[in-house]
């Protein structure tokens, strides 16, 4: 397998952007300036980027409550996202949505979603649209291990199989749904197996390894674009923070996050792989790190000083016309 230099640089930049965005938010949230509650994606970057590097702006994704990584990987504007998370007028959704509702149709981003299991049926609908429009595009439903227990998700999977819709279900198995382990809540312990039960191919991949996700996603998109129907991938991954910011994580072994940060860091893995293969140098990657740090800093500075929505905005955007 040989990868283009530009491709690798782009993939790393995307992952680094997500990581910095989230690590910075983790700090900024402690200032109390950011409203609401926020679910960070740190640790899972290889999944969002491994998946979205197989997609174009014309392909669709439906995201989750833990959506920042998906948004960035799909090309949403980072400053626009930061503004949204701060609840500012110039945010991607005018400050009306917030962290759990970032969306950008122009990037094929159908929205983060605060209802677990809300996204997959929507993704199947977008896949049906692709099929009807015969445009060769696909739709991806992101979900967690916890979402794999929601009836709406089962319905979406079956419907996609029945219709041979170009849909791809991505179950990011990070081991937990809120304070409950997947070992307990996923009765079969095996989400990919469930997907096979619905009649579609499904594979487990290493969510800590960009290349593993990218390869699995390649098989799934190829099948979908050829009109052969849906697939599932189950990347095994980990989250580096609590379920939401402020979660004391009593359900996790005390050293688990530190251990995972030391051994399952997808950015470290990527660096190791590409430098040992001599595809990229440490200097290449360091330059990206620098660049991204500046970009995130600008996003935060912009968002902190930006204007809130005017009260008149409260009653706009409820309908197209009324």
């Amino acid at each position, binding site marked *: 397998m040989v990868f283009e230099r530009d491709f690798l640089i782009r993939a790393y930049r995307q992952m680094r952007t997500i990581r910095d965005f989230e690590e910075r938010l983790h700090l900024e949230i402690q200032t109390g300036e950011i409203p609401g509650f926020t679910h960070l994606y740190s640790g899972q970057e290889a999944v969002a980027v491994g998946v979205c590097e197989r997609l174009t702006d014309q392909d669709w994704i439906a995201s989750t409550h833990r959506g920042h990584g998906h948004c960035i990987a799909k090309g949403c504007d980072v400053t626009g996202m930061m503004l949204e998370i701060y609840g500012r007028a110039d945010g991607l959704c005018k400050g009306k949505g917030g962290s759990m509702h970032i969306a950008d149709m122009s990037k094929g981003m159908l929205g983060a979603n605060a209802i677990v299991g809300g996204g997959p049926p929507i993704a199947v609908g977008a896949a049906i649209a692709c099929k009807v429009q015969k445009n060769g595009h696909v739709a991806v439903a992101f979900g967690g291990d916890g979402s794999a227990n929601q009836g709406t998700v089962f319905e979406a999977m079956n419907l996609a199989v029945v219709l041979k819709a170009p849909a791809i279900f991505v179950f990011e198995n990070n081991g937990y749904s*809120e304070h409950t382990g997947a070992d*307990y809540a996923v009765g079969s312990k095996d989400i990919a197996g469930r997907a096979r039960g619905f009649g579609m191919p499904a594979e487990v991949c290493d969510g800590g390894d960009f290349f593993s996700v990218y390869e699995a996603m390649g098989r799934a998109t190829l099948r979908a674009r050829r009109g052969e129907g849906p697939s599932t991938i189950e990347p095994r991954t980990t989250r580096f923070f609590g379920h939401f910011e402020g979660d004391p994580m009593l359900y996790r072994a005390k050293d688990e996050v530190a251990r995972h940060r030391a051994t399952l860091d997808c950015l470290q893995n990527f660096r190791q792989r590409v430098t040992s293969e001599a595809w990229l140098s440490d200097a290449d990657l360091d330059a990206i790190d620098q660049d991204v740090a500046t970009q995130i800093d600008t996003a935060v500075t912009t968002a902190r000083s930006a204007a809130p929505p005017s009260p008149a905005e409260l009653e706009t955007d409820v309908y197209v016309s009324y």
Partner: protein
Amino acid sequence: MRQLSMRDAINEALHLEMERDARVIVLGEDVSGGAGGTSGQRDAAGGVFGVTKGLLPRFGEERVIDTPISESAIVGAANGAALAGLRPVAELMFADFLGVCFDQVFNQAAKFRYMFGGKTACPIVIRTATGAGMNMGAQHSQSMYAMVTGVPGLKVVVPSNAYDAKGLMLTAIRDDDPVIFFEHKALYPRKSVVPEGDYTIPFGEANIVRQGEHLTIVAIGRMVSFAEKALDALAKDGITADLIDPRTLSPLDDETIYESLEGTGRLMIIDESPPRCSVAADIAGLVASNAFHALRAPVVQLTPPHTPVPFARELERAYIPGPQAIEAAARQLLKAG
């Protein structure tokens, strides 16, 4: 006198009733927490707001059930368990998730007794966190009590303080009908005097929080504390009101409202749900039908606008009917008619 937060008051009611009645079970997502985790610690959450903390260590895994994220199965299983002899208390983490399981709520639980000719009962309680004010966005902030109040067969409780919450919860669990119990997130930490031990508050009996002469204010849930703030400010100008907290929306103690109106002639209803087909609109309609003669001015319905709940602080603040809006509306109402 001992003060408890609303969170702890409900927690105490659950403990008391599980102790008293072995048929009571609790089920929902993370009601204990820690199952399948790597710390080995159970009760790692006790509900995301801590309301069910301590139940699992006390009553065990059979009666305190952590479920997967499966709202239809949570409420459906509560229904089935109730038909088969238990008294389940199901938790929907946020009231917005009624959207996921509405069939089990309004086609199933609400209708068993009637459809089956009175041959069965479905004594479930659905506890759920409600309301705006914490910038949780459009899918975690709604006040959906009006939607269920309109469904025959369901009882609907919206406590405004810790004392009532405990007494109403004990009544809810002992009630033989399905009860939806809306707990306002912003009220969880608020404390009031809560007696130890067993006491119940009957359904369909409003609480007259304050007595006054110039107007009648009916306020629901969190709006009661806002109305009190507004009345504190109005008192400086000698303006006083009957402040009525219905406590249960179904059944509704409308008589108390009519009686108050005989004295004041002016009515303001403060409801956190959007205006159309709201509880405010319902009460205004009842008053128009049954106490029109007592009215000296048009009824004021103070509600959020007909919009989803916005995220940004400034917008959410503008959305919620706050103490200042209540005060201004009251002054306006006194000039009217």
